[in-house]
């Protein structure tokens, strides 16, 4: 990695490395991510199925699709994508995550290409994908526009980019910083820097400047009664997820 292509803040990488070993413990440090995962997967699978005309009730519906997960961590998204038949590359800037993810994929009987790396490095190498998953990463990068441009370069024409992040408003400060980090201790203090959160309109604007064509956005809302997350058409006040396309041709 050269300084010209590095948009990830080194201090952010160090924080996640410290958290890497417990990726797959459903009751461990990454419990909040495991709780959020079904909701993220609902969105991702539905969007991919719609975009590429796949039927989710069939065997291996994503066969033939090449999917990249940026910031793959322990493989929480890579494994479901591989199970659905996709050819999956997972990259993470934290080297310690890669062997954890590789070991777990082997135990799950899945073949996934895990690499240490960044979106920018893959784009420089000319890699191309049908789908780029960019989940809960953009709020951690130093140069969001440069990063989203790299994501667009990684997509084949007509490719699908799915990006989730956190909105920036008083509610998201209360939920993500005070609630998740200070009160519930779901995440270590300092996991998120609220000032780096991005509003949906800002994200759509950034994506358009990066050459992406935004097509959909939905909120991800935590229900404390059922202790689970669900997708919402209206409530994008805290966590939200978007779909955008690399224009064909």
């Amino acid at each position, binding site marked *: 990695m050269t300084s010209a292509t590095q948009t990830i803040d080194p201090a952010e990488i160090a924080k996640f490395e410290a958290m890497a070993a417990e990726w797959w413990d*459903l009751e461990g440090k990454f419990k909040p991510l495991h709780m959020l995962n079904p909701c993220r*997967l609902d969105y991702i*699978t539905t969007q991919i199925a719609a975009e590429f005309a796949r039927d989710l009730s069939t065997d291996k519906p994503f066969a033939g699709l090449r999917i990249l997960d940026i910031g793959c961590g322990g493989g929480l998204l890579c494994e479901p*994508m591989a199970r*659905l038949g996709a050819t999956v590359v997972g990259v993470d800037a934290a080297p310690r995550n890669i062997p954890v993810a590789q070991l777990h994929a*082997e135990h*799950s*009987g899945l073949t996934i290409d895990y690499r240490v790396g960044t979106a920018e490095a893959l784009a420089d190498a000319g890699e191309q994908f049908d789908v780029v998953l960019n989940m809960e990463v953009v709020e951690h990068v130093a140069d969001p526009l440069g990063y989203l441009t790299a994501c667009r370069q990684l997509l084949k024409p007509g490719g699908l980019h799915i990006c989730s992040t956190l909105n920036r408003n008083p509610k998201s400060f209360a939920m993500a910083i005070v609630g998740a980090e200070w009160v519930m201790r779901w995440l270590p203090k300092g996991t998120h820097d609220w000032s780096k959160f991005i509003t949906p309109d800002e994200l759509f604007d950034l994506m358009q400047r990066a050459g992406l064509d935004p097509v959909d956005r939905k909120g991800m809302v935590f229900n404390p009664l059922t202790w689970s997350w669900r997708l919402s058409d209206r409530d994008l006040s805290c966590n939200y997820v978007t779909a955008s396309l690399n224009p064909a041709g």
Partner: protein
Amino acid sequence: MDNPARATILPVMVRDYDIAITGGGLNGPALSIALAQAGFRVAVIDSLPVDTRADPGFDGRSYALALGSQRLLRAISVWDAVADHAQPMLEIKVTDGRAGQGPSPWMMHFDHAEIEEGPMGYMVEDRHLRRAFLTAIAADDRITHMAGETVVDQTVTPGGIAVGLASGQEVQAALLVGADGRSSGTATRAGIRRTGWGYGQTAIVCAVEHDLPHRGIAHQFFMPHGPLAILPLTGNRSSIVWSESDAEATRILALDDDGFLDALRPAFGSFLGDIRLAGVRFSYPLGLSLAQSFIAPRVALVGDAAHGIHPIAGQGLNSGLRDVAALAEVLTAARQRGEDIGNSQTLTRYQAWRRFDTTTLAIATDTFNRMFSNDNPILRAARDIGMGAINAMPGLRRGFIRQAAGLTGDLPALMR
């Protein structure tokens, strides 16, 4: 670990099946068909040979299928094969009875005409259900029926579970479902303990022919030693579920057929004319048997393996089929997300959905049985007033009808 060699077969395993099910009764096959429809490859491990399951003779057993259960059977394309043999239940009459005195004037009367969905349920004989399931399983190439096979051990592996069979075969799957009844070996091998107690009651089950038509009416008499249910079968026949104290049941079961009918007549009454036995008599001890957890690593329990309850409300099979529909829905959603169907996160969703419901039902049937299976004059007065009050309030009555029809609560999609 029963097989020390297995420890070395690590870590990658090639799965034969997505899901293995132990138990070839009714819940196991129903689940296998629902799962196969959703695209899973399923093995049903059944301790009984096919010939035994397919025996067309009537053994006296039958089930009250709630409307929700009937909808499940329709959704898994089994209903057409049993529809011609199903007797719609149009009314339910609940009476506080006392031997020698006849029913008390206080009673509850539930009529399907009060709800718009149709009959409250259907009475179907076990033999017709069994054969319909066998046919459906054999016709589905995603289901492998391993009949006459017993499980000797089960071992959790990194990505699944290995199930060793007495024949020496090994079945590997992502998930093992125990549908093997209240003495579930699957639960025991998974280290799941059980809570429960006997009721000191035995259920005597048989079918009778009678001279007069039943007009689709089911009767429940609460007798001092236990409830007596008279449930309409096709033709001029009814199914009897007669709960008695163990001692009295032993005495009654020792009688010959004529003596048995003489013992039954005073409780049965004369409203259907004279009665004759149609098929053999069965009996089984009544007890409550709840698994302390419905799930373990790579294991889920359904039906009596999870919750064996008192048959007082005829909800055993219906409750089991709700487990089946809920588990199939949870696993199908997990599969479509690409999730690991056997991990604790997926299984916890199933347990959270079903455990409260079934435990509530277990407590309700237990309480019902204790309240009604006695001759205490105060309790008798209290339950008479209670039944009279429920009967007088149409809203409450409709609530009970919908409950009996299995249409309340968080209904799985397959039952809607």
